[in-house]
């Protein structure tokens, strides 16, 4: 399957080409190039998927294929970075997801970003991002993954900061990069520890031969914990950074400063699931070597899911609502991995997590794109500027509704199936986690429909005089349905969302690679549907027509409300740490120390010499007799010294 190499090469080429020509070509040309390339890639990935999954299994599992693998940089005889392509169920699945979404986003952007300054730059960055993401998922070894991990980080930095004249965008981009960079540091440390003990970077060795390679590290501990636990914890922190797990989630909401399609691509569908993908990659290692870390993943995930869901309920910027819902959904996947067992029906969680990753990518992208077309229409992110839009933009309305139902977990939409699996897996692990997750699911349904109603229903839309807000194109006061280029992706994704649930996902992807039969756990299923419907009804009552209930509630739980709407002041905490502690309490003193202590010492030598020189000038008195006197003293002194010693 050598042709898979094209999947990596093409976007890189289009990045280089678009990057170099910059604004020398017509925007349309650049856009077309980018889109066409993506189209080809999508086709290729579908073909890959088809070919891969239509191969019959060896010993009941899909085998790992490595069609391409070259040595890029050699450290020691064991440790060397290879660049290659690893095909196994999850990577193929990711290929499909990524190419599909970014293809959609490319089409969508053709009209959404139409007339923006730096259109070519935008498409160049999109290609770069796609390249990095694809390279990440097909990585054959940790270091290749780390390389593309960093590239992903940078391209997201560039995309978030696309409107580089806008200070808030620049700040958001910087924040995103530094937070993820901070997490990557732990990732790197984890890699180093792991490779030090296992003497390899290679995934297939690490996961397949985990019994033998970890023999060397048996019993090795550092500060009381097993070294491998440290390593895997570090790697998980890396993943948590990208996947915005608590407490590293702070960058994601700000990242919404980027153009909306970018949010759809990066911060909904692809990049943020990199962390989940990473943990899934290492799943056998986590499961067999460091179960305690795996459980840690579950707990952190559960907390994040709840935490984000609560915040999402009170946000008023629609993109931020979606951002928090993303955090919470990613957390669902993490939990699923954390609670999963390994083989057979034990492996529900793993399968569910991947399944949810797949379905979530589709409907979350759909949601973002829908939000995008709304914003495109009303030039604002704020709920208060919206309402009653269903009359003006039917397609967006219907597709958005489908997505909401899917994420809320209403059958027959895709979300139901994947989420249901996750819940049942959590219940098998522990009722508490299960309970938390169910509650989070309920909140999900609630805030999504709050969002939906306040956009499309609620008060009627007031036609404003001047358009203001997010990205101005200045035209049209009356909101209108989006053009085809924007509508098509919505419809397409909606279609996928409707049918995706019926894909026999377990037959393709499972923890062992062996076939796995999805079975709906009736109790859990019914309960979750009921819970979801109830919260939808509540939302309907509160938001379908403008009522006073929301404000009343806000009053009664004012503490919670304020906290939630300020995201529980986490950003302030971070600000305090970075600004006050690191900048003012470390850097500034250091800089001062350097100038006024160390440097001063160096200058001190010089000044002392000068001072001495001034002090002793009296010796040169100009009196010849004194000269003779000193002369004589010198003579006698020398004599005395020599005679004594």
């Amino acid at each position: 399957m050598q042709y898979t190499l094209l999947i990596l090469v093409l976007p890189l080429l289009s990045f280089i080409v678009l990057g170099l020509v910059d604004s020398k070509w017509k925007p349309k040309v650049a856009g077309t190039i980018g889109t066409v390339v993506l189209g080809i890639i999508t086709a290729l990935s579908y073909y890959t998927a088809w070919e891969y999954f239509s191969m019959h299994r060896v010993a009941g599992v899909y085998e790992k294929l490595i069609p391409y693998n070259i040595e890029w940089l050699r450290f020691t005889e064991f440790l060397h970075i290879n660049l290659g392509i690893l095909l196994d169920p999850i990577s193929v699945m990711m290929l499909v997801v990524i190419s599909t979404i970014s293809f959609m986003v490319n089409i969508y952007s053709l009209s959404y970003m139409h007339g923006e300054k730096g259109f070519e730059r935008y498409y160049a960055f999109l290609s770069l991002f796609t390249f990095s993401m694809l390279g990440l998922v097909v990585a054959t070894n940790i270091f290749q993954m780390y390389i593309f991990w960093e590239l992903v980080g940078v391209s997201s930095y560039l995309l978030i900061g696309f409107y580089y004249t806008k200070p808030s965008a620049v700040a958001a981009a910087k924040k995103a990069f530094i937070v993820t960079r901070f997490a990557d540091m732990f990732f790197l440390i984890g890699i180093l520890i792991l490779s030090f003990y296992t003497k390899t970077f290679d995934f297939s060795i690490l996961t397949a031969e985990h019994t033998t390679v970890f023999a060397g590290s048996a019993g090795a501990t550092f500060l009381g914990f097993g070294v491998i636990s440290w390593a895997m914890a570090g790697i998980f922190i890396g993943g948590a950074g990208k996947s915005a797990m608590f407490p590293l989630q702070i960058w994601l909401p700000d990242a919404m400063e980027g153009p909306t399609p970018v949010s759809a691509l990066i911060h909904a569908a692809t990049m943020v699931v990199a962390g989940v993908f990473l943990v899934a990659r290492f799943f056998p290692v986590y499961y067999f070597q460091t179960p305690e870390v795996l459980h840690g993943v579950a707990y952190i995930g559960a907390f994040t899911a709840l935490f984000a869901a609560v915040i999402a309920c009170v946000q008023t910027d629609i993109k931020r609502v979606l951002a928090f819902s993303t955090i919470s959904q990613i957390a669902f996947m993490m939990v699923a991995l954390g609670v999963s067992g390994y083989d057979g029906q034990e492996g529900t969680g793993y399968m569910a997590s991947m399944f949810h990753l797949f379905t979530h990518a589709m409907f979350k992208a759909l949601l973002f794109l829908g939000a995008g077309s709304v914003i495109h229409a009303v030039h604002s992110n704020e709920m208060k500027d919206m309402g009653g839009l269903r009359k003006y933009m039917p397609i967006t309305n219907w597709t958005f509704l489908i997505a909401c139902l899917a994420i809320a977990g209403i059958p027959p939409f895709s979300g139901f199936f994947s989420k249901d699996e996750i819940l049942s897996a959590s219940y098998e692990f522990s009722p508490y986690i299960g309970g938390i997750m169910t509650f989070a699911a309920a909140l999900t349904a609630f805030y999504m429909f709050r969002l939906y109603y306040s956009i499309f229903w609620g008060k009627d839309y007031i036609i404003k005089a001047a358009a203001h807000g997010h990205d101005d194109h200045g035209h049209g006061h009356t909101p209108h349905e989006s053009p085809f280029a924007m509508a098509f992706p919505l419809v397409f994704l909606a279609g996928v969302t409707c049918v995706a649930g019926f894909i026999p996902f377990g037959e393709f992807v499972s923890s062992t690679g062996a076939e796995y039969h999805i079975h709906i756990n009736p109790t859990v299923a019914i309960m979750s549907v009921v819970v979801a419907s109830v919260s939808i009804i509540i939302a309907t009552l509160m938001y379908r027509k403008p009522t006073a209930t929301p404000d009343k509630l806000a009053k009664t739980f004012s503490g919670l409300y304020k906290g939630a709407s300020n995201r529980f002041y986490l950003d302030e905490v971070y600000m305090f740490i970075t600004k006050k502690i690191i900048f003012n309490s470390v850097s500034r003193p250091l800089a001062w120390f350097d100038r006024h202590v160390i440097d001063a010492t160096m200058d001190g030598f010089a000044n002392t010499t000068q001072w001495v020189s001034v002090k002793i000038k009296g010796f040169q008195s100009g009196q010849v007799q004194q000269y003779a006197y000193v002369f004589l003293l010198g003579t006698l002194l020398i004599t005395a010294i020599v005679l004594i010693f």
Partner: protein
Amino acid sequence: MNFLSLFVLIPALMMMGLFVSNSRKQIQFVVATGASLLMILSGIITYMYFIERAAGNAATMLFTADTVWYAPFNIHYSVGIDGISVAMLLLTSVIVFTGVFASWKIDPLPKEFFLWYSLLSIGVYGFFISTDLFTMFMYYEIALIPMYLLIGVWGSGRKEYGAMKLTLMLMGGSALLLVGILGIYYGSGATSMNILEIAKLHIPIELQRYFFPLTFMGFGVLGALFPFHTWSPDGHASAPTAVSMLHAGVLMKLGGYGAFRVAIYLMPDAAKEMSWFFLILTGISVVYGAFAAIRQTDLKYINAYSSVSHCGLVLFAILMLNETAMTGAILQMLSHGLMTALFFALIGMIYGRTHTRLITEMGGLMKILPFLGVSYVIAGLASLGLPSLSGFVAEMTIFVGSFQHTDTFHRVLTIVAITSIVITAVYILRVVGKILFGAVQDAHHEHLTDATWYERLSVVTLIIAIFAIGSAPFWISGLIHDSVIPVIGQLAK
């Protein structure tokens, strides 16, 4: 006389050419041809080196030539190169070349400027090709002195102070160094000052205990070893563009190279015994420099401190005393040389336009100077270790290598050093965000013109080099790795 001496000869000829040339055109012609010749020559050398190695020539040094110079002191004029020298020669040629174009329109006294510039490059080239302690030291000092006038006459800001400080502190370094060299020579009882000869002998350990620290610190001063780094901010801040490029790009590498080639290679026992102490110092400079850089507001100071941090990493890796880390150290020299040169070139060009280096007084330059802006971002990304740019390769090699050390102390220290990559990201993004992005601070900046052809030429050359190392590291790392082996052999002895 063997053809390596061309590296010294060509700049000498440049100097003569400059003596006779009197119009700016002629001067430019002379230096441009000279620099390009050096570029080509280093390319040829690299090619020949690979050929030789491929032919199975396993000697430590290739193309060696040895002429007795001062028989009474066994001083020979002996040259030779291994992979590391080749890498350094390439680096030097690139930077000399780009430096020439970066100071294409230098004013006043272009003739004198390039005279000193050529003398400087004589020193640097000579240092890298010579295998004799005396000639090495001589070239080292030749490289130090032109700095004073270059900074003093063509510099900016507190140039007299900066120049004097830089010269004197580096002179102090060479004072330590000279004692160390004499100690090595007489301690080993060698009948020649040729490094390869001395390496065969064994210096008694109790002597090494004295002379290793002297030699290492002597070179360390030039390598910006904490706490002897303070010349770097003032010196670089006041130096003219090309000089900052050459100094931060190549001269600071003399420190690392010398520490590697002389201190460690000739006194391995003491190195093993004392490395822990210097490791702590270098570890400090890595983190300390990065933190200090966060708070600066002058572009050149920021870059100077980041150089302290990056060069600290070089010495740090050398002291890890294992082949991967040492390979990484040399790679880091290359990569830091290129990117810091790029930084200084860009800073110089921006300063030439905005007439300020304070990040508080700039903003939104990306819109006005797209070329310089993009290049600056690339330089920044290289410096914070983005894959496919040189910085990543070097740092990763260093970290992986250092982490292979069996001793926990070293591994923990490595982790401490790793934190620097985050801090680096912080200050790089701070600068980029402040000066390139956001709104335009100063209305006068609105109608600045973007880079001219010669500026573009020098910048693009550097960027290409950075990419070449970053995206295809295997050849250069192999080149270096083979030449690290002898030193490892010494350590194993």
